[in-house]
């Protein structure tokens, strides 16, 4: 049996944050100016790299806060609700994306320098994990696979 509460506002906050984080994540590459996305109404900001990063940080912060919240409440209620296989996959990929993202944000602070190899590795880990998380989320949407199920 799946644990599912479509009415919970947190689901919609999560979805909005994921969409925003992925959208601005792609926007950190020079794509939106090139492919006219920044020309669309209400999306002019997306062609501005600095605005993109700021929105990306906010979306990421929402996901980190929700991640920490659900991690704690999940282990507290583990006896009753458990992650599905798709839930586990998404949780792993999201955790990788968020953790590498935090390291990337740390790297942007003054006085913090990464050697080029580490810098590239973190960039590609962050991008790769985010893309696989996006694919897993789309898969879960198509398969209507939830995050949690009631424990047997």
């Amino acid at each position, binding site marked *: 049996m799946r644990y599912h509460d479509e009415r919970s506002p947190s689901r919609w906050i999560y979805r909005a944050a994921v969409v925003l984080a992925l959208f601005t994540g792609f926007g950190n590459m020079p794509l939106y100016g090139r492919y006219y996305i920044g020309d669309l109404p209400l999306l002019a900001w997306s062609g501005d790299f600095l605005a993109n990063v700021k929105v990306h940080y906010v979306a990421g*912060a929402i996901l980190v806060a929700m991640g920490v919240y659900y991690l704690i409440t999940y282990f507290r209620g583990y006896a009753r609700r458990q992650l599905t296989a798709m839930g586990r996959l998404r949780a792993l990929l999201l955790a990788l994306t968020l953790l590498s993202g935090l390291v990337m944000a740390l790297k942007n602070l003054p006085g913090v320098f990464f050697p080029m190899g580490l810098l590239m590795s973190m960039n590609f880990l962050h991008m790769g994990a985010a893309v696989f998380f996006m694919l897993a989320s789309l898969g879960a949407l198509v398969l209507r696979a939830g995050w949690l199920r009631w424990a047997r």
Partner: protein
Amino acid sequence: MVINCRVNNAMDPFGFHFNFLPEKGNAMSISRRSFLKAGVITAGAVASAGLPVKASAADKGEALCTLLDIRKCIACEACVEACREVNEEKFPEPKGAMPEMVPRDRVKIADWSSEEKREVSDRLTPYNWLYIQTAEGQYNGEDFEIHIPRRCMHCQNAPCSKLCPFGAAFIEPNGIVRIHPDVCMGGAKCKNVCPWHIPERQSGVGLHLDLLPQYAGNGVMYKCDRCYNRLAEGELPACIEVCPEEVQQIGSRTEMVKKAHALAKEIGGFVYGEKENGGTNTIYVSPVPFELLNQSIEKGPGKPHLAAAADVMASTNNWAAALAVAPVAGIAGALLQARSMARKLDGKGR
């Protein structure tokens, strides 16, 4: 003067050609080595091993900074020539026709590889990483003509590096900001976020040709790399080495800032680069205010300004506070939820 600088490619642990390092004995004669002590040599030793220079290498030496006393510059362009000669091996060599970029109206080919364009020396190009600007006017009732060598400022918290989506632009512990030609996609984000729009693109080269040449990327971005390979060998950057007027000095940032202020005080002059974009490792001292120089110099593509430059990364980093607060918010939310549940259970128990 001909400067020879043979190069070889060292591989980094991630499989990329990482450094173009000169072999010993092939570079021009050394002078003024005394500027470059432990910091540079330590960093150079690690770099010459083909490894990314580790932060620990910088522990012994601060970031390198240059101080330019622009009163002395006579616009002889010896530095420009020397820069081109020693860095020739690093210049792009496009092979074959330029790709048809998509969409054509948005993605312009930047091709500086023709014989004629390679010779351009009155602006920054992928083949000209340093040029001389000239400012003329009147200050305090006296005429002035001042020449200003311009190139990458090597910012302390360089936005080109911090915001490069591929990690192609990076900062070495000795303060040099570099762009790796084998990794750069030529998207020009670095140029966009640079307060001076320094990096210059050459289309038809680089990694993007092996990926989606028409649809992503557009060549490689080039700029001054402060002759990192010469520094690794304990030599001076070519522009400093050849200058007949000794316009530039190089040393630790603390020392150069101190000297800049002393010089500015002595001549009643002005300092530029110390605080611009949050601080750079290129500091100019001028007897004329930089606002005046900025009004006079020719500005535009490949011709950077001399205006005040706000710290690009500062506003971005202010927003990073949200990320610091986020875990605390998550924990607080979980505790509140636990308390609410406990109260509900208490209510049921009664």
